[in-house]
């Protein structure tokens, strides 16, 4: 056990701290939209200083540093401690850019990466369909080659940011005769292409966090494909695992739990502070112990990325399952502490935390389902983590 980052990193941390101190007042304001000059300028500044797109080659608009997990961690720690804006996120940056770096053509890297990381191109992800959720590989949106163009017909769902996106990276079926995992291709196309219709999907929070996207004879140039025809499933899976753990980071859960502690110290029930109620206090402490375990688990995972001899396969697989359910319970405690006040939502004079307790309680139920449901996670953990056999497949009907 050596929990220090080592003296060689002290100078780097000091450098990050100095940047944060000098720039904290320069960061974008909460109301600045994703396309505002302030947000774009901030993004450019972060990249120029190595605080965003740190390891992306300079040739593609990144900072071009060697991968160094500890330096990345220090940046994250210092930005988080100062509540400093960390720049653009989104699926173009977190999912498409790594795919292009690994599997894209030189022309695709040149065309997309610089603009994507600078926030000039906003992307959405077209994977799930009404009939293809947990069984994603059964997707039926089809693309047929007609001369030099793909012609796309079908429907996607759960497409976040579709209404503001410039481009979409999309899984489509191009080889209908092939086995389902081998008949999919990974296409890129503009969202303003004729034949695309975006309909907001209002969810239980009252917001439209997702959309439905309909494709009717959408014509896309033939070369806007990543990888070969029929390899789209492998292309997408090169990065899907990356999404899961990041949905419920334990440090964010602990920060939220600390919010519950403050709430319990402020709110009173019959004149008694909620924190003085032993039943609520026990629930709070039980959650704190569970979050603490996930934080140390996270340190173990970080360590395993540095020290390649550590086996943390199972420790990594459980993060999405445990993290999302834990977060849902933390928000639930916040609501329960508030009692009837906790029902407040929207325009209500007694609203607490800008309505975030109820919003997050519902939102995290969405995350328990999204990104691979808890049940799919349990299949993965039992099969790939514990080596248990797959459920036998039903004989295909009519085959």
């Amino acid at each position, binding site marked *: 056990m050596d929990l220090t980052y080592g003296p060689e990193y002290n100078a780097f941390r000091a450098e990050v701290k100095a940047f944060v101190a000098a720039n904290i007042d320069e960061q974008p304001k909460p109301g600045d939209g994703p396309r505002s000059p302030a947000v774009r300028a901030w993004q450019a500044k972060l990249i120029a200083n190595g605080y965003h797109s740190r390891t992306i080659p300079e040739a593609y608009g990144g900072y071009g540093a060697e991968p160094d997990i500890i330096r990345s961690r220090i940046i994250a720690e210092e930005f988080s401690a100062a509540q400093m804006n960390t720049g653009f996120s989104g699926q173009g940056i977190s999912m498409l850019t790594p795919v292009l770096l690994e599997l894209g053509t030189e022309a695709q890297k040149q065309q997309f990466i610089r603009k994507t990381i600078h926030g000039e191109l906003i992307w959405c992800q077209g994977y799930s369909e009404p009939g293809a959720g947990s069984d994603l590989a059964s997707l039926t949106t089809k693309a047929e080659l007609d001369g030099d163009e793909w012609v796309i017909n079908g429907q996607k769902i759960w497409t976040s940011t579709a209404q503001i996106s410039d481009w979409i990276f999309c899984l489509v079926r191009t080889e209908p005769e092939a086995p389902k995992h081998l008949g999919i291709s990974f296409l890129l196309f503009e969202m303003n292409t004729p034949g695309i219709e975006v309909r907001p999907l209002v969810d239980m929070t009252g917001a439209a966090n997702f959309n439905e996207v309909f494709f009717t004879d959408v014509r896309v140039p033939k070369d806007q494909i990543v990888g070969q025809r029929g390899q789209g499933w492998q292309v997408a899976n090169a990065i899907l695992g990356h999404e899961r753990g990041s949905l419920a980071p334990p440090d964010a859960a602990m920060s939220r739990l600390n919010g519950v502690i403050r709430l319990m110290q402020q709110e009173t029930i019959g004149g008694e502070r909620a924190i003085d109620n032993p039943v609520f206090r026990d629930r709070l402490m039980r959650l704190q112990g569970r979050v603490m375990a996930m934080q140390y688990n996270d340190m173990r995972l970080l360590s395993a990325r540095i020290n390649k001899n550590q086996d943390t396969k199972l420790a990594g697989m459980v993060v999405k399952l445990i993290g999302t359910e834990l977060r849902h319970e933390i928000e639930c405690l916040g609501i329960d502490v508030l009692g009837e006040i906790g029902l407040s939502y929207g325009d209500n004079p007694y609203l607490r935390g800008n309505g975030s307790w109820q919003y997050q309680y519902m939102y995290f139920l969405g995350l328990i389902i999204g990104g691979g449901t808890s049940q799919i996670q349990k299949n993965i953990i*039992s099969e790939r983590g514990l080596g248990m056999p797959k459920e036998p497949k039903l004989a295909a009907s009519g085959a």
Partner: protein
Amino acid sequence: MEFGLSQEQVLLQDSITRYLKDQVPLDKVRAVAEDPGLDQSVWHGLTELGLAGLIIPEAHGGVGLGLLEAVVVGETLGYHVTPGPFLSTAVIAPSLLIAAGQTDRLADIAAGRYRVGVALSEAVGARLDAGMTVSDGRLTGKALFALDASADAYIVNGPNRQLYWVDAKDPGFTRALLTTIDKTRTLCELKLDQVDATLLTDDPAVLQAGLDAGRIVQASDSLGAAQCMLDQAVAYAGQREQFNRVIASFQAVKHLCAEMASQLEPCRALIWYGGHALSEGDGSARLTVCHAKAHLSEVAQFVARTSTEVHGGMGFTDLVGLHYWFKRIGANRQLLGSPEGLREEAARIQMLVA
């Protein structure tokens, strides 16, 4: 930065695992359960591996390792439901003596010449009329659920969290085995009548150091026991067939196993950190230890129940012997502080209790 076990710690775990598989299989555990006195033969073997002096400094004849190593050993002993007094003699008693600066008895403990029990239940949460009074250096009273019914001496919690050393050969000393569900470690009731007692310390921090060490190692014992129950469930489900297929291929069974694994696996890092932080004297150690013991009590209890269910009717029988792990986990939950008590202590440490 390295968050994990060192190569030496893994080797330590491997060598003890090999020894236990070979020398203390389940049949031996069953034999000790029938005759508690046989635990001395098991303990004798473990002392030859150096476990009695694991955390005792080399200057006093020990191995000089830290609590993280004690955690690693504790997990291994829990995995194999190994009988014997490791927790009391090799962890809590030396921790108390070292913290109290009373080092003259350490060499005998390290050499395995002495089993030292601990009677600390009254400091954690006294039940019934248990308690001690002291006059003229003599202890009188009752201590319940003292760890180790075969010890040569005991460290006893006295008034005001003072700690005393009493010898089991003292004419005023009597004890009675308290039979419990867990036959792998023994508990007893001490009755002291004007027993000649040596005051070890009147500093309550010493008691705390002993409790912290005992709690983290006991949590690791539960981690090991629960891990073994999970492994047994996965193995059993992989060979038991119903409806013409192994039951491990049913999602209902797989999901139970996945739930056990996903709750248990993060506990490993929590326990390691607790042992490491105690060894380093880190300020966050006590909070982590309270949470580690409380959380492991809950997770291990869930695993104990769920693994038994995965085994179906066989899990309920004595044939498979799964109940030894179930009961070990059950005992760990109550000893040295219940999860409810430890969570309240965690809140107190953070000054959240008015």
